[in-house]
């Protein structure tokens, strides 16, 4: 090194040789790069910038002296000068970027957060298990071509019983413990056997909805009726006075018992999975004939036999059968032309089974510790 570039005598072109100029360019370049490298902050770098590229900068002064060189020597020195200048600019730009990036890094570092310190934010709520189960069931049946029908929860004796082939004093009425409404003089409880068609009950099943559908909709009918039902039952682990059922109804030409069995099997595998199948056993309901009990493979042991299914491999899900001709006739449907089937089962129990809940009452405490689990 020949000392600081600023001290390089360059004012007099006469005593300047091209070699000396090249040497001082080289020196200025070296010193400039060192200065850039030495700048630790962007302020320092700004200062360096003015010494490198300002009017009094070493390379600038050399450039001013360029004119005194013989023309044939100018090109080589000029080229060296440009190269040195470009090197310094590149080094400066790089250093500037580097310093900016590191300043940004430092700034962001100061923004450090422990994300686990975050206090709880807004929570999402939860749908009731009965709603979740009902919707899941509806989706399966809608996929199978069914519509969803609804009807009133308070019903006349006609819709809840008589139209369903359960005339007054029918012994099978005792299969349902019925809650009657007190609507003034029109209602009398009778001798526990019901009777007046205009008596008003809280529906004991969603079958009245089937009647209402058949009254207004000519067949073919493919519909399900989910909803709330009522029984005069004391609440215990497996009974509630208010619970939920889903029933299905198909009325069409040529509908047979095999169609019932096939539909229930399709539903079973769609809802419970391929490992679970269904079977029908003879049973009795006043509104169907032939009637059947609808069992599915035990969902706990998948048929191997366990405590839940009392080692039978099957659990009882609900009732079903071919719609009784009297029921069709009560709705003005010619049962020689149209036949149909119906089925029904509890929704609450499906929710219990899916989640391993032992006590039905837990589902209705409205305890947030229960609700928020699902």
């Amino acid at each position: 090194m020949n000392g600081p570039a600023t001290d390089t005598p360059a004012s007099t072109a006469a005593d300047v040789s091209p070699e000396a100029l090249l040497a001082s360019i080289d020196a200025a370049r070296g010193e400039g790069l060192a200065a850039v490298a030495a700048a630790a902050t962007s302020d320092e770098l700004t200062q360096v910038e003015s010494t490198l590229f300002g009017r009094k900068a070493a390379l600038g002064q050399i450039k001013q002296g360029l004119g005194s060189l013989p023309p044939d020597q100018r090109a080589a020195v000029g080229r060296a000068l440009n190269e040195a200048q470009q090197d310094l600019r590149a080094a400066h730009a790089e250093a500037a970027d580097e310093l900016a990036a590191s300043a940004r890094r430092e700034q962001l570092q100061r923004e450090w957060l422990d994300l686990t310190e975050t206090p709880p934010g807004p929570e999402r709520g939860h749908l009731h298990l009965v709603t979740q189960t009902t919707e899941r069931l509806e989706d399966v049946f809608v996929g199978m071509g069914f519509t969803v029908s609804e009807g009133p929860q308070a019903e006349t004796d006609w819709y809840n019983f008589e139209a369903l082939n359960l005339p007054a004093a029918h012994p099978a009425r005792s299969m349902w413990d019925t809650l009657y409404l007190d609507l003034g003089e029109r209602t009398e409880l009778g001798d526990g056997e019901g009777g007046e068609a205009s008596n008003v009950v809280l529906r004991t099943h969603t079958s009245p909805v089937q009647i209402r559908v058949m009254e207004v909709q000519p067949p073919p009918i493919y519909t399900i009726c989910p909803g709330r039902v009522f029984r005069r039952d004391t609440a215990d682990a497996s009974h509630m006075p208010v619970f939920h059922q889903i029933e299905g109804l198909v009325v069409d030409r040529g509908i047979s018992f095999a169609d019932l069995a096939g539909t229930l099997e399709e539903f079973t595998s769609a809802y419970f999975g391929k490992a679970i199948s269904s079977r029908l056993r003879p049973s009795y309901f006043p509104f169907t004939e032939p009637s059947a009990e609808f069992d599915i493979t035990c969902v706990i042991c998948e048929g191997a036999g366990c405590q839940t299914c009392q080692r039978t491999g099957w659990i009882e899900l609900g009732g079903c059968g071919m719609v009784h001709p009297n029921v069709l006739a009560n709705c003005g449907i010619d049962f020689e032309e149209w036949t149909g089937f119906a089925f029904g089962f509890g929704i609450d129990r499906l929710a219990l089974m899916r989640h391993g809940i032992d006590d039905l009452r837990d589902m209705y405490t409205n305890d947030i510790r229960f609700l928020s689990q699902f």
Partner: protein
Amino acid sequence: MKVLLSWLREFAPIEGDPAELADHLSDLGMAVEEMRMLPPLDGVVVARVAGLRPHPEADRIQLVDVELPGATGEGTGGALQVCCGAFNMTEGDLVPFATVGTTMPGGLVIGERRMRGQLSQGMCCSAAELELGADAEGIMILPSEFELGAPLMSQLGLAGDVLYDLEVNPNRPDAMSVAGVARDLAARLGVPFRIPAPVVSETGEDVSTVASVEIIDADLCGRFGVRVIRDVSIGQSPLWMQARLTLCGMRPINSVVDVSNYVMLELGTPNHTYDLALVPGGHLGTRRSAGGERLVTLDGSEREMLRGDGLIVDRDDRPIGISGVMGGENTEIGDSTTAVLLELAWWDRLSISRTSQRLGLRSEASMRFERGTDHELVPIALDRFCELLDRVTPGGVSVCRGRLDGRGDLPPTTRVRVRPARMSHLLGRPFSSDELRGLLDPIGLQCTESDDAAPRGAEPDDGALEVTIPSFRPDVVTETDVAEEVARHYGYQRLGRTVPRSPEPGRLTPAQRLRRDLRRVLVGAGLSEAMPNPFLAPDAVRRAGIDGADPVRLLNPLATEESVLRPSLLPGLIAAAAYNSSHRNDSVSLFEIGVVFGPPSAGDADTAAADTSAAAVLPTETEHLGAIWAGGEAADAVHLTELIATAFGLRLSLTNANDLDGMHPVRAAQVLLDGQAVGVVGEVDPVVCERHGLSQRCAWLQVNVEPLLAAASAAAERPYRLVSTYPSSDIDLAFAVPNGVQASQVRSTLLASGGDELRSVDLFDIYRGDQMDPGTRSLAYRLRLQADDRTLTDEQVADIRQRCIDAVEHAHSAVLR
């Protein structure tokens, strides 16, 4: 209904694996709820009491020397010594003896042990300990003909027996008897079935000389059979009979009662025995009561008859029994009875059902009569009773010659025309007439070719059968009923499986879909779904501050706490919030979408009286959404209202309203949908909160869901509004507005006066304080202006601004600040 395999075998040669038989029974519709293989109890053998000695250390037990071939022990003369707490044995009695190592039915393992210093080398057993009878007091004394040392169960004829507990459907009266179950099972197995003819040796005078029957109401009693049996001595029935009765769920009482029950279980024919000496002239009459008559029944209670109830009366028309339900105390069989008047009747099903339900007296007999008994079995069952009583009475009994057979109205024999095509249609598989016969004949449904060629329905009549329904199947009355019998005996599981397809695609209605969406909006807003009980205590309605409603009452509630139907969702949800608060979850947010009930909509009186249509008598049902925020403020509920409006494109607005039911007196508003009131929003009356033990405020929203979903359904089709590509301008306007003017009114005025270019109005600041005139507050709105087709000029913006200011100042006595 419990049946023993050995008993079934008395009617048909039923063989096979007991578990397979159980499957057949279930498959036939008699679901086996429990199958019990009777324990072989090989360790319990017949032993003889060789001697009885007092226990030197104890009064309540004695020492028994038990003689058992091949066994020696500590007792006198090398007999086994047993400590026993019963004292009913005498020397020489045969008793059931549980040898050391035996596991008893209850699980107890018999071991050799000392009682008060004396060795006990086994156990003498009571009937109860062996689960063969009810008697737990004394040791079973076995008949002297039993073989010493032989296993007890084989001596009782119970070895290897199987007990099935069957669930019998109400439409199967025939299955309420051992014979009926055997008939069904035999048909399934293809083996012959037969009810053996009872053998009765008649010795006494003719029955008509000592007894008479009169059916006064023929519609009540179709058949009334009577026999008289003399030389009866009331005693214990034999062990085999006691064992069968006990296993089938009946308590052995005495020989006459046991035989009566045995015949009922076996043939499904309930019967009643009178002490002939207590029935004047042996006369039995039956009629309906005119009401008001009283009778003390066998259970000791005095019963008052209502008009129409069936009665048995004596010669003097005095009630001595309730038809088919329970006998009277005044003619009851007792230890001194020597002559028995036996009644075996067929009663009208509905009459029995009505009376037994009314009296709350459901007996084994009434259960069978209700379902329908077999009137053709009356003579057979009478004879079977005599045969059995003769067999179980030491020395036998004398049976008077002949039977009385009173006749009333019996149902005519049912004949059903059965078309193979219809059967095939209903069951989804072709059935020929021969196949149908093969299935129906064995269960007593006799088929003949129908000679009636006239077609009766849509199905072809080819090969139609005329099926005669037997008297034991009163439930089978139509062709469809026969289809069930065909299906049952063919096997439900063997019928095919096909899936019919709806001609229409499945779908939810728009309202059903939107209701689901609504639930999800609520869940997204942090509310969880509750399902409170729709039944309330009358008091709960008042406690929730709802004074105006007249809730619908239940006629027969289980409890007063559940005696009215909710007129609002507030009582249930505030109780749910209180429940959570009392379990240290203070700030729950809950919602419910559910029905609230009101009295039937009145209409005008004239038509209401004449109109018995369902709509006129049914209570009104309205589906509401209720939402509660424990610890929340009115703003929470207002925000949710706005969220719902945004989610479904609804024009919901609020009008402040004071003194709403259950609401904070001045922090409440009505929710309007397109100007119509559809609900309320705000805070729950703090008094109501306090009554429920809630110390915090509660925000509340309740809206009628139906109009909401209808409007949402319409709004779902709303057209797209082009998003403008031109720049927008914002202007802020703050007004001093009198407190009596709702902010929403100011906003509406702004929206109405700003014209098409006013795209949004947001309330961004509210100020109340010293700088405001009393009775006013400052409301600051940010207005965004934008045109679809141009950039608004400064002049146009200024113009709109001035229009808005003028409109608000003019409409609301407000002043721009």
